[in-house]
């Protein structure tokens, strides 16, 4: 009974917040609702025994996505009233509601009739984990069994950054992204932006480091580091470098490039792309992760910093 309550509370709250976020009239409350939603999802992932996922959600869902959305909602506030007037007709809303209901119904039926016992690759994943040298099966999936997906994921992120940059006005190309934030150097924001990042960076590196054997990893660590960087940006303590900086470009591509290079090492030593030679799996995985972590942190930070707006001097 108690156990059920513990399980039910976040589940129902998440549903309620999802409804709130979707239906509340104004956008700002919706984004606040979404922030709460993201934080609660973290609890849900723990309940579902997905601690690695919980870490990712805590970092991305609430934190970075929250910043992205709230900034946009503040900027777009003036457009809201006009946009509301364009609500589709009642008939369309009704049709949409019925169809969405059908989708939910179909999915609910599917959930209730999922096969039992559930098919699972857990046994296989554990059976082959020894040669990868890592202790966390999720890391084994991400860095060995399905390393290709992870490589492509880092390219997806890079491509998103290219997309964000592509939105720069021509005159600002090569310049600095986003506005330059100023804040009172003795104010609260500046204070916390000085205190939090050192702690955050240590935590980020720690989360990255334990990833091989415990929940954690490069992505989660990188997100925390990126968030800390963004904090110092918001407090006006630092500025984004112009996107034309060569070192920055190199740092951005270093992660995926090293990943591919290690894949080619596999070709040379074992004859197979992305394979690790016997006994070398763990060091090579670490090499990839060490190269990816700064690239990911920088990419994430820059994606959030936005398109270049200020022409380089």
């Amino acid at each position, binding site marked *: 009974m108690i*156990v059920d309550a513990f399980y039910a509370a976040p*589940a*129902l709250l*998440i*549903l309620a917040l999802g409804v709130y*976020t*979707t239906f509340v009239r104004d956008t700002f409350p*919706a*984004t606040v609702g*979404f922030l709460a*939603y993201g934080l609660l*999802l973290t609890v*849900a992932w723990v309940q*579902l*025994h*997905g601690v*690695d*996922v919980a870490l990712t959600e805590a970092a*991305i869902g609430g934190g970075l*996505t929250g910043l992205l*959305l709230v900034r*946009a909602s503040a900027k*777009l506030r003036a*457009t809201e009233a*006009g*946009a*509301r007037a*364009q*609500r*589709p007709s009642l008939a*369309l809303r009704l049709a*949409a509601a019925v*169809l*969405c209901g059908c*989708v*939910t119904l179909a*999915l*609910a039926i599917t*959930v*209730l009739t999922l096969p*039992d016992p*559930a098919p*699972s*690759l*857990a*046994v296989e*994943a554990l059976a082959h984990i020894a040669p990868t040298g890592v202790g966390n*099966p999720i890391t084994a999936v*991400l860095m060995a069994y*399905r390393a290709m997906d*992870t490589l492509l994921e880092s390219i*997806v*992120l890079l*491509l*998103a950054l290219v997309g964000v940059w592509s*939105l720069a006005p021509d005159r600002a190309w090569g310049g600095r992204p986003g506005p330059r934030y100023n804040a009172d150097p003795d104010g609260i924001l500046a204070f916390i932006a000085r205190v939090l990042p050192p702690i955050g960076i240590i935590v980020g590196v720690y989360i990255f480091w334990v990833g091989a054997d415990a929940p954690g*990893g490069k992505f989660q660590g990188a997100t925390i580091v990126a968030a800390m960087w963004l904090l110092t940006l918001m407090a006006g303590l630092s500025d984004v470098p112009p996107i034309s900086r060569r070192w920055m470009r190199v740092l951005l591509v270093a992660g995926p490039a090293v990943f591919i290079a290690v894949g080619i090492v596999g070709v040379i030593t074992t004859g197979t792309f992305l394979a690790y030679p016997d006994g070398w799996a763990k060091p090579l995985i670490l090499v990839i992760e060490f190269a990816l972590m700064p690239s990911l942190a920088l990419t994430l930070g820059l*994606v959030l910093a*936005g*398109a270049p707006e200020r022409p380089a001097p």
Partner: protein
Amino acid sequence: MIVTGATLFGLVAAGLIGVGLYGLIVNPQPLRKILAFNVIGSGVFLLFGVVARRGAALGLGGDPVPQALLITGIVVAFSATALAVTVLLRLFEETGSTTLASDAPAVASEPVVDAGTGTAALPTRGG
């Protein structure tokens, strides 16, 4: 307990996907559509989580394969959100409006006049 807890989350996921789809279709504000996309996305991810949890075995709390896919999925969804929000803000800066309703084709800035009959073609600007 695995099954009941997971099933509850599965049903919540089904609900979230429906709610999010409704928001995506009906809410006229692009930012809210992006939010709704994230709600759908998290519903799908929850479903992944449920599938992973049900596949728990050998002392693992869940099937690591869907959990790993989930992490990749969250990253991809975040990238998509970031790109969409940036396009939206840029659209607002450039045009002062954010509506997606007008489907004025990008290059047809001149009136379409039928030379054969001399009458203007039907207006095709959707509302």
